[in-house]
């Protein structure tokens, strides 16, 4: 493969992170075109693993989906040997998209422009009129198909999730995630068969990192999202915390029922008070759940650097894929999940509880607009910084959720990947 022609080492040389380190985030990271361009090279096409789709979305040989790694268009496809492959969605000839549809089933891919064809591993297999027409034209004898093809990605799967990386030097997926994150993914998805219940795309009016910060920010949850408080649905006896992996880039925020405290008398009286002070749901069946997890964890938000989220909010399981579109535009792809093992009653519960999440979610719709409020607020503040001092200055796991440790963790991993 020829050189990229992009002088990566020279870009961003004039940018320097504030001296305070992880407790400050310079606003130019959300606004500058050079940063946005460098992210594609250093981060999305660097030694990170990006989520592509679910294995359940590719049940049969020839099933494919098109998606993106950052802004890089990608085809992900199951081949006849049952392996999942991913390759750049760019014809080796003149650069047109190889696959146009969001999904489908094919025996092989053929570029619509000049019918160059590819097998299910992304290997160039045919060039139309390669030998010319009636002995005239055609490709030179020196042209070797094996020397041409879209870039291939390394693919790895975990609990039905398909991840890929472009970087040969990236560690294996499980090593990249670490044992704690792997265990927390398997806790939700392991040992059962995910079924897609619906897909929705939310178009966010902000830089992709503002959404990532929001996902990792457990500090804002009970402040910005007032639904539970307004309707007196907060459980006072919760325990929880956040886990930040050593790289900083992945995190888990969780809360669980504290069964010991639930029996506490004081808790009962507090609970009564809070219920009297608030509105009541006209239809409380919204939150009638079923016990899906023996550990009593009712909320687990898990993120994988750079742009993947697995959520369990009560019985609502969803994956979110965060994709940059422009400096100030982001696509958030929601895939709501159930499991083949669900009973009809359990499936109905998932549908009703899904009112909590997504673009119209009772506890998530604010996340759709708050990133835009920041993007607009910082319009001329390239020289200023955000302040991240809640819970100290580190990026380690904490038992309190009133912390910005996992947001600092993101910036730790981001700076390492970007060389900032």
């Amino acid at each position: 493969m020829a050189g990229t022609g992009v002088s990566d080492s020279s870009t961003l040389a004039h940018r320097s992170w504030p001296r305070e380190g992880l407790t400050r985030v310079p606003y130019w990271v959300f606004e500058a075109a050079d940063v946005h361009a460098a992210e594609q090279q250093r981060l999305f096409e660097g030694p990170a693993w990006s989520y592509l789709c679910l294995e359940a979305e590719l049940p049969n040989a020839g099933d494919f989906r098109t998606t993106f790694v950052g802004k890089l268009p990608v085809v992900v496809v199951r081949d006849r040997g049952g392996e999942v492959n991913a390759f750049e969605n760019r014809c080796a000839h003149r650069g047109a998209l190889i696959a146009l549809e969001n999904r489908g089933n094919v025996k092989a891919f053929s570029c619509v422009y000049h019918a160059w064809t590819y097998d299910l591993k992304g290997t160039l297999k045919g060039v139309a009129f390669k030998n010319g027409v009636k002995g005239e034209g055609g490709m030179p004898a020196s042209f070797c198909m094996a020397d041409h093809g879209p870039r291939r990605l390394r693919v790895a799967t975990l609990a039905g999730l398909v991840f890929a990386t472009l970087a040969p030097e990236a560690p294996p997926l499980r090593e990249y995630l670490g044992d704690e994150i792997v265990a927390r993914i398997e806790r939700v998805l392991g040992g059962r068969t995910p079924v897609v219940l619906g897909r929705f795309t939310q178009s966010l009016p902000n830089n992709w990192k503002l959404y990532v910060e929001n996902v990792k920010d457990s500090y804002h949850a009970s402040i910005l999202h007032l639904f539970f408080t307004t309707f007196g649905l907060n459980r006072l006896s919760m325990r929880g915390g956040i886990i930040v992996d050593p790289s900083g880039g992945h995190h888990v925020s969780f809360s669980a029922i504290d069964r010991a405290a639930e029996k506490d008398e004081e808790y009962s009286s507090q609970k009564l008070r809070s219920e009297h002070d608030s509105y009541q749901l006209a239809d409380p069946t919204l939150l009638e759940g079923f016990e899906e997890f023996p550990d009593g964890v009712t909320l687990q938000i898990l993120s994988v650097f750079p742009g993947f989220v697995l959520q369990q909010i009560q019985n609502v399981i969803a994956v979110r894929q965060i994709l940059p579109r422009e400096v100030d535009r982001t696509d958030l792809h929601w895939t709501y999940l159930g499991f083949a093992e669900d009973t009809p009653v359990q499936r109905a519960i998932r549908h009703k509880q899904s009112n909590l999440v997504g673009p119209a979610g009772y506890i998530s719709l604010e996340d759709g607009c708050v990133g835009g409020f920041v993007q607009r607020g910082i319009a001329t503040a390239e020289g200023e910084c955000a302040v991240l001092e809640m819970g100290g200055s580190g990026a380690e796991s904490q038992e309190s959720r009133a912390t910005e440790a996992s947001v600092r963790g993101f910036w730790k991993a981001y700076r390492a990947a970007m060389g900032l």
Partner: protein
Amino acid sequence: MSDAFQQIAALNARYARCIDDGALAEWPQFFSERCLYKITTADNYKDGLEAGIIYADSRAMLVDRVSALAEANIYERHAYRHILGAPFILADGGAEARSETSFLVVRIMRDGTSEVFASGRYVDVVRFNGDLPMFAERVVVCDSSRIDTLLALPL
């Protein structure tokens, strides 16, 4: 012009006017007590995927939606303008009819920005008992799978 057509056209007109005038507290009254109100996308609908952006199986859940928008949820002030097509009657069983109606919704933001927010069709089951017809089912099938920023007011 059938009776069902006229009644559903009038119901649709009242429904759109209610939302566009900001009279959301009255919006649940367009539905029967046990009902289905769901917002989904054409892709999900075609593929038989059941989840909704909003999913309510009772009028009381719609009441809660309105209360949450008024009391709990935070979003920038905005309004809709619904432009509706004529209802197409799929089946007219006397007490109940199934119909489809196209819609176009313009969202008008606080600063005056007006954009097409959604287009699609309502797939309805309308029940005629008593004076006022009601929706036993209203499945809002958006043509696009993309929602700009957030969906607060109902479609």
